[in-house]
């Protein structure tokens, strides 16, 4: 099955995979900058760009509907397990 997110040949598709390396470089640059001259603004920029980088990596996996379903199932099961293992 064609992965439309990572197939640049699909009309309207987003090639998330190609966005990962430059974004990783962007995060690395800001990390270095923050290490030498930390500031609140730079920290916010680093957090925003790191989050965008993680989003690209996630999106590059493809099929968001199936991923969403699986994430919801795992999270639901994890929280319900707390009722069993951590009674108060």
């Amino acid at each position, binding site marked *: 099955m064609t992965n439309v997110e990572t197939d640049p040949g699909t009309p309207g598709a*987003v090639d998330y995979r190609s966005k990962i390396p430059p974004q990783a470089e962007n995060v690395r640059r800001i990390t270095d900058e923050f290490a030498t001259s930390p500031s609140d603004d730079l920290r916010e920029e680093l957090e*925003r760009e*790191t989050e965008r980088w993680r989003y690209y990596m*996630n999106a590059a996996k493809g099929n*968001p509907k199936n991923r969403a379903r699986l994430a*919801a199932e795992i*999270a639901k099961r994890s929280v319900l397990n707390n009722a069993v293992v*951590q009674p108060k």
Partner: protein
Amino acid sequence: MLVVSREQLDAFIAADDNELEYHIAVALNKVDPLRTLGYRPELLRDTMIKNGVERARSHGLTKPEDVAAFVAVMFEVAPNFDEQEEIKSILNDATFPRSERFYQLFERASDDAWLEAEKYYDYEAWFRTGTE
């Protein structure tokens, strides 16, 4: 036979929002340990998860496990996935109980709707509760 009410079960899971946010952070780590690796607690718990909980509740989700599932989808797809038109219409479909609509998304919303929800990821949505 021991009978546990829904309220008691909820209290077993999380006595308050602070505990719920903690359990959601644990759940997110189980979904994908790399997704939020290294995030400051002030960003992850006090902002992203806290606003996610409010966003889930704005759609009528009240059970801790349902709220956690909703927040997990925000991290998996986009914090504003619920703003995509087709997804929004299912979440607002009054012909079904509010608690059921979220899980119907995985059956009723099209692949294209999910692709679009992901495509229009908005970082600023982590700082909104969805009720503004």
